[in-house]
């Protein structure tokens, strides 16, 4: 398996503010990056959470993004999450707090995983592997669900359009279906699109 391409997002210092939390975060981040490298991970970039973060992530297309849970970078990253919500990627939070390290609680909160600071290098890998596996599984079920929903909706539209044709043109079900197929081929449209147009037209004309 190809090694994971990871992006680590770092906090940005606020101008004119001496924030002790910032120094702590920076140190934590450094330890984490060393740990990841030692565990054989490929950190493709270590990015500051500035205005260009969304563009950089779009360019790099990492498999996973890691950010400090207490970072002021979280909301900038949130923008990326919402903007790319149809192509989500796992976000792993790096935290000082052992209490939040329960995978189930994290998953329930929509986070892929938490890594607790001070985690030995050897233990980072299993955490990330499980996080990624669970994330992919979750994405797959989500995709299947929306696919099923879509198919169901399309079938309903098709049935309704057939019904309209049968009623208005005195066709058999088979003939109505053939007519829809012909229309779809002539107009180079999907069957469901033609069906929707027929319904829309019928709605308009009452």
């Amino acid at each position, binding site marked *: 398996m190809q090694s994971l391409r990871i992006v680590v997002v770092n906090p940005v210092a*606020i101008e004119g503010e001496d924030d002790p939390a910032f120094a702590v975060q920076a140190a934590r981040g450094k330890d984490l990056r060393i740990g990841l490298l030692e565990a054989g991970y490929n950190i493709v970039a270590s990015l500051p959470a500035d205005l260009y973060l969304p563009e950089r992530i779009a360019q790099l297309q990492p498999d996973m993004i890691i950010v400090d849970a207490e*970072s002021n970078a979280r*909301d900038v990253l949130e923008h990326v999450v919402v903007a790319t919500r149809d192509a989500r990627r796992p976000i792993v939070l790096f935290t000082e707090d052992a209490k939040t390290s329960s995978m189930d609680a994290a998953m329930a909160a*929509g986070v892929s995983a938490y890594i607790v600071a001070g985690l030995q290098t050897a233990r980072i890998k299993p955490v990330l592997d499980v996080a990624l596996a669970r994330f992919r599984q979750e994405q797959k079920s989500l995709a299947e669900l929306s696919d099923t929903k879509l198919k169901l909706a399309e079938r309903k539209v098709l049935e309704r359009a057939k019904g309209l044709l049968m009623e208005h043109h005195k066709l058999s079900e088979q003939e109505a279906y053939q007519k829809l197929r012909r229309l779809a081929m002539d107009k180079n449209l999907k069957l469901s699109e033609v069906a929707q147009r027929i319904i829309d037209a019928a709605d308009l004309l009452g």
Partner: protein
Amino acid sequence: MDVENVLPQDDLDTSLAVDGKRRQLLQTATLAAGASMLGLSSTATGAWAAGSDKPEKTEVKIGFIPLTDCASVVMASLLGFDKKYGIKIVLSKEASWAGVRDKLANGELDGAHVLSGLIYGVQMGIGGQKKDMAILMGLNNNGQAITLSKKLADKGAVDGASLAKLMTSDKREYTFAQTFPTGTHAMWLYYWLAANGVNPLKDAKVITVPPPQMVANMRVGNMDGFCVGEPWGHRAIVDGVGVTAITTQEIWKDHPEKVLGATAEFAAKNPNTCRALIAAVLEAGRWIDASLANKNKMAEAIADKSYVNTSKDVIDQRIMGRYQNGLGKTWDDPNYMKFYNDGLVNFPYLSDGMWFMTQHRRWGLLKTDPDYLAVAKSVSQIALYKDAAAMTNTPVPKDVLRTSKLMDGVVWDGKNPQAYAASFKIHA
């Protein structure tokens, strides 16, 4: 009164471990003033006589983001209103809205000062996080603003109309910042741009930036405009980097803004704690709104490093309605940030909640129409709120919906959310 000597100036501990002596000082000094004015007895020893009313959880951890509108939550703790209702508010200063959301969801925080829109974003699972949420009360109306850079102002763009004109004549990529994708500032910014004929998603680049970083980013030319809560709008004026193009109260007078949020599970398991918490914050809001002197003390208190971490002068102008736009215009705004306003601020109107969902729908954050009313009913904890309002003699409006006219003359009364969401010419 000199709050300087009683506030923890050197206290880096944001969990607010104010020692008893300081707390007492602050209380006797400020509460006495507030209490006598409100006809309260400042020697109240907890309102919970009956065992069944006892708060299930007596210590509540409440998150806040360093903004002026965290004031009622902070003052409820500083002035001891929490104690009066048998709970202890433990304040936790947070670095990001995303962090607030995750900590509410996983129980690290019991409640939080949070963007109304964010609560509905989590409720609907926008961006991944889906959890049943609760709004216990509104925290404030008004008091946010949209700022345009000095560079734009020099080119004549000082309000919505002149900005739209400049964007048409001087074509390039224009960048505007808000604070959270589903939050209030994103919705004010989008509404204002669209009301001026600019499609925020197609004609501009919108980014998310934490409030304390707005001014610095504008100074170095990273953005053309931003929408954020005070004190940052005023700070941009003071620093000479931007001009106030519009205040949010001009977009929607008395608009909903921050709420006291929790998970639905927390509200269901701890109804007495929630009532006590709402009551304490109601009293704090009433205290802030009661006089200019109290507002002054509030500004002094929340300017501290443990809270907003700025100078008192940056906070204390706009909370009194003293506005300046950075171009020499000054005015007294009667619709400044309100924390109580006889309870009108705090009632969790269903129409307010639904409005955010209609805008999420309008801008494509929601792909389909939710059952607006049912969702708002499940989120707004109106029954709990009414109990707390009764405990504090806070007037409660008759109707769970209210009618508002926004800047473009369009009326929102909460009656047909689906049609309203679909009625905008400019949308995603």
